[in-house]
């Protein structure tokens, strides 16, 4: 049934690439987001300024342009390094800049900025008294973060995170432009080859809707979990 003129298996593989890419960039974005949020709340002016420049620049430039900058620029950077290795040490080693890695790095880097803003707002929504109470119990900073700030912050952050994830999922389609065989690229190639665009593009659109619906369900459950003890908001 899923043969689709022989393109079925490749489309499925492409769907796998899309999902892997989305999840890995999500992980990177979450880590970067937490770092950015703490940098933005830092009293150190320099750290604060760096984080502000990062979030402002990223949110001012299209994802596709950043992706191309990193992918084409990264390839050039890698070439320069391998040339240098050859010139100075006669090591003949060619590294090809991986499109998948470029995709994960750019998407993670872009959404790190958005996540940072979400996390910052959520951290500020946690009552200061809670943190003071934790300190009064003799907890160190890390323990206060793990047991008090993080779980309570997540309650406020989840709606924003869910939003960012939905946008991130759709952004993964852009990697098809820099040559990664995700499901969008496979479908576009198949459409061009067979002149039957709807047969390939509509199922891919449906797949995105399906992933979005599943994630909505997961986020609803997470929301419930982090809201335990808050009277079913």
């Amino acid at each position: 049934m899923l043969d689709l003129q022989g393109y079925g298996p490749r489309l499925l593989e492409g769907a796998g690439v899309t999902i892997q890419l989305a999840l890995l960039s999500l992980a990177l974005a979450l880590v970067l987001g937490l770092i950015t949020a703490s940098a933005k709340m830092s009293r150190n002016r320099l750290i604060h300024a760096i984080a502000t420049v990062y979030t402002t620049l990223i949110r001012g430039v299209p994802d596709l342009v950043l992706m191309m900058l990193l992918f084409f620029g990264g390839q050039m950077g890698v070439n320069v390094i391998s040339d240098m290795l050859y010139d100075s040490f006669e090591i003949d080693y060619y590294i090809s800049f991986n499109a998948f890695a470029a995709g994960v790095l750019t998407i993670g880097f872009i959404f790190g900025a958005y996540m940072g803003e979400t996390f910052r707002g959520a951290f500020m929504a946690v009552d200061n008294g809670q943190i003071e109470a934790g300190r009064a119990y003799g907890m160190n900073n890390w323990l206060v973060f793990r047991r008090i700030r993080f779980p309570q912050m997540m309650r406020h952050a989840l709606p924003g995170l869910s939003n960012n994830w939905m946008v991130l999922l759709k952004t993964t389609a852009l990697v098809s432009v820099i040559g990664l065989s995700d499901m969008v690229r496979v479908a576009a190639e198949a459409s061009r080859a067979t002149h039957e665009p709807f047969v390939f593009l509509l199922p891919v659109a449906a797949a995105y809707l399906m992933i979005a619906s599943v994630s909505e369900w997961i986020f609803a459950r997470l929301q419930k979990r982090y809201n335990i003890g808050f009277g079913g908001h």
Partner: protein
Amino acid sequence: MLDISAWFNDLLAGNLIFTAQTLGYYWEGLVTTTQLVFLSLVIGLVMAVPLAVLRGSKHPWIRLPIYFYTYVFRGTPLLIQLYIIYYGVVFVDGIQDSFLWPVLREAFYPALIAFTLNTAAYTTEIFHGAIKATARGEIEAARAYGMSQNLMMRRIILPSAFRRALPAYGNEVIFMLHASAIASVVTLMDLTGAARFVYARYYAPFEAFLFVAAIYLCLTFAILYFFRFLEKKLLAHLRPLS
């Protein structure tokens, strides 16, 4: 005039990549991007207002199709929508014989259609949310004045909903500007298309893409400040007294 062009040539002298010719490409790209984004936003806005009102209709056969439309267009990547329209337009029956064909054959119009439908879907949801958030008291007051449903919509609900929707709509405009970069994928020479061309011609990724990133950044800030200004003017009554 001669002074300026001499100064300009001096500025570009010895620069291998940013010649008058490549700057011309960027300029054309800027024009294409602006046209594409502006037109799709205007048409999308005109579509979104009635859709947002009807999206709150009591009749499920009016409400549900609109909900389905916004769900599909907001749940799938714009790139897919663009591909479907760009590759699919040929397959509309009889379109190649119609008078529209010379127009639709160019990449600009499929891109415009895709962008318009996409932004209309997002804008519909933004306005729908703003309409739903109208204070009950305002509606009751309008009813007490004996206003009809239409009059109330026109005089009370829509003006206040527009103001409430302004910050979210400003984000949508910026989102549209950034999303328009994918027009370059279907061979359009927009800003990103120009950057790709310059990159391919001179193999200079940093110069080509950083320059275009700076242009996008300026455009983003211009939009941001424009909407800040509008909010200041239109939401003045909501500002805390200082």
